């Protein structure tokens, strides 16, 4: 399904907890402890609910998030909608922090991918206020409220903010994304020398974290599923420009890239470059490969 859906507003509510029941009888002290804990929890939730509502009145210390919800499995979530969350703000808080807070405090079914929370695992690319961004490195303070959080556009939504990445991975793997030197130096302890200049040339392309933001932002990649897309082409660039691979290999790489669904589909709109959280000059890399493709083909014309 597409994420372009009519918006229906619903207020989220935290459910009031009831007294926890036990199958086995507990020791009196333990019973008392459990009872107190249940009371404390009910108090806490009541307070959280009250505070969230109060803050919604326009308190500066709260951020208002509108989060996309959808779950094909669960009745009531099958119709896509946006839920509102009011999250207490602390300096330095990111979109990911806010989502984690909302999940752990208000609704444990709120689903999104995340792991390293330091912009290197690439799992939390989201569509925030109309732009592809990594949740973990996007400061709430840089965003207008309400902060609208949606899954990456142009991808199948599995649930809430989680999209199917299979197509992205398939494209990445279609460019034969592995190093393939003509020959290795003699001796297992000998290095293949690489100049600093050459390492510098491929450096930015090696920074890709496979987050999928670029693919999601690219109109062309959205229009047809066959286009390799910026991430995969950048991956090919990383190897094609590495001086340690030989000419034949480079030609083979260019052959893959200059096919119908390769570099020529790029219309230089720069949207991939704009959203890349690792600042990789994707569009430039694609153009450079177009040039290489022309140069190499001219030899045979």
């Amino acid at each position, binding site marked *: 399904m597409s994420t372009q859906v009519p918006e229906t507003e619903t207020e989220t509510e935290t459910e009031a*907890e009831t007294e*926890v*029941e036990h199958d086995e009888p507990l020791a009196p002290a*333990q019973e008392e*402890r*459990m009872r107190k*804990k249940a009371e404390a*929890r009910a108090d806490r939730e009541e307070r959280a609910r009250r505070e969230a509502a109060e803050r919604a009145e326009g308190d500066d210390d709260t951020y208002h998030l509108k989060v996309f919800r959808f*779950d*094909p*499995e*669960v009745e009531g979530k099958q119709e896509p909608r946006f839920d509102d969350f009011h999250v207490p703000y602390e300096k*330095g808080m990111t979109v990911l922090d806010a989502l984690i807070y909302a*999940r*752990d*405090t208000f*609704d*444990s*079914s709120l*689903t999104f991918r995340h*792991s*390293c*929370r*330091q*912009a*290197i*695992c*690439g*799992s939390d690319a989201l569509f925030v206020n109309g732009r592809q961004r990594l949740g973990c*490195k996007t400061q709430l303070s840089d965003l207008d409220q309400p902060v609208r959080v949606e899954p990456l556009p142009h991808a199948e939504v*599995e*649930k*809430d903010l*989680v999209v199917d*990445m299979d197509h992205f*991975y398939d494209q990445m793997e279609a460019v034969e*994304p*592995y*190093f*393939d*030197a003509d020959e*290795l130096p003699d001796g*297992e*302890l*000998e*290095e*293949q*020398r*690489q*100049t*600093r200049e050459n*390492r510098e040339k491929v*450096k930015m392309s*090696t*920074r890709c*974290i*496979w987050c999928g933001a670029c693919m999601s932002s690219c109109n062309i990649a959205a229009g047809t599923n066959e286009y390799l897309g910026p991430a995969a082409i950048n991956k090919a660039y990383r*190897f094609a420009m*590495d001086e*340690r691979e030989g000419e034949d290999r480079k030609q083979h790489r260019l052959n893959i890239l200059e096919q119908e669904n390769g570099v020529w589909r790029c219309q230089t709109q720069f949207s991939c470059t704009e959203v890349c959280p690792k600042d990789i000059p994707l569009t430039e890399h694609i153009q450079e490969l177009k040039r290489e493709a022309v140069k190499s083909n001219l030899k045979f014309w």
Partner: protein
Amino acid sequence: MYEHDVIVVGAGGAGLRAAIAAQEEGADVAIVSKLHPVRSHTGAAEGGINAALREGDSWEDHAYDTMKGSDYLGDAPAIETLCKDSPKEVIQLEHWGMAFSREEDGRVSQRPFGGLSFPRTTYAGAETGHQLLHTMYEQLVKRGITVYDEWYVSDLAVTDEERPEDRTCHGVVAYDIQSGELSGFRATEGVILATGGLGQVFDHTTNAVANTGDGVAMAYRAGVPIEDMEFIQFHPTSLPSTGVLISEGVRGEGGILYNAEGERFMFEYGYASNDGELASRDVVARAELSEVNEGRGIDDEYVHLDMRHLGEERIIDRLENILHLAKDFEGVDGLEEPMPVKPGQHYAMGGIETDENGETCVGGLYAAGECACASVHGSNRLGGNALPELIVFGKRAGAHAAGKDLGTAEIETGQRGEYEVGEVDTPVQPGEVEPAGGESDAVADGGVAAETGSGDGHDIVERAVTRERERVQSLMEKDEGVQHAEIRSDVQESMTRYVNVFREEEGLKRALEDIAEARERYRDVFVKDPSRTFNTDLIQTLETRNILDLAEAITLGALARDEFRGAHWRAEHQERRDDEWLKHTMLSWNDGSPELWYRPVILEGEDKEYEPKIRSY
């Protein structure tokens, strides 16, 4: 049910290397991982990878530094294996195209790191782990190795003979996160656990959210001893707000630590007069917290790490990633201002007991990487020694599981040979809440051993699946109770408060009480999200169980070890006591009640014996 010769659990550095090695030995191998491989936490490693590559350096020197850094709690056969194998393995990565930083002559660059007598830390900017992870994943794609990504392995299929040494692992049980399908994975040759760190036991950690120590906890409950769990490394430079790591490379390149008074305290207050900022991580972490505790911290919380004097060119060339991290997560421009840093949980030196071939005492069960303890890091890991560990022991485990003869291991595993039974005075009964063999429900029950009796490996895996299905079902069917997030955060806070850089007896006991209380509450845990699709509520609930068992193991070990060694500092015991404590802390689950025992450290290397020396600075 799926079936392969070798099943690797986890797809970080150790898992990928193991899979490649197993396939090279002709095995049909598959990786099962709760994340897609490129999302693994190895990608967050920054500083570098130690290997003796240059003239003037030698594997023997690397081994000596590692043993000294470990505060003589590493086992010589494991350390020597690490140091002998790592040059070849690092060059193997180079041959696979890894984008290492380069010298003028085109060879890979190396830099100084804490505790090293030679600048032997090979690196790729300050993103070495990212480059390593992606390079290895590329090789995996090249070889067409099967990956079951976003499958959560929640249990091992191990037989239940009385002695763990007689048990066999036949596979794993995994939950397809996307579909909610629970399935068996039978391994005819071996299962390799490469599940990484357990930083989520603490609330301020450099580790990813996924690092919940699943492999260690599963192996522990299956009867495999876990070793030296009390030794947790706190990295001296993590960002105060998030725990994001600021590489030791900053200090390696000449970065300086200052307190609130602008004093270079490592020298000024004599924490390490010879090595300054490049003293071992445990020393620097204690120095920083001492400054804060004595009122010389900034905002009563952190100190400053300054790299401005290195100059923009050098910073961009070698530490560019650090500029981005400081900017994105702390709003600080490292070229213009010093960066705020404080110690954060970083690495678990302990883990699943293995020998130098990655084998555990349970037949067919291997472990490698951070989840394993061979042991190479002893009580304090040197910076730059985690990445070589991944590839060296990942490769050995993979090759061995696939049938390659690596020679007889010198390290013994399980309760064999010489060992000593330990005792510790605990304020609460550690272990499962319900007594072993009692009326324990599927949620609280941790034992994983499937029933034996007639039947082959296939049946053992089937039974483990059935059992796990019941556990998951009971969690899902409950419609009220306690949520995992509450239990998890309480334990994390207690661990950070009481089992941190500085430890004292009373605090350790408090932590054990808190953990016991959390176990009680875990009996009432429930999964609120009824969905079978991508149910992270369920996954995190299962993970929280692992956090509980590991928090307890760490704290028990720490309480029992009444000495000061490496990263383990005890208020009441300020001396390293070699006469009594040159031994590994071992913990066996024993059907739910942890049993403490000890095994002597092996200081006997191939050609020499490592003589414990006083640590002086």
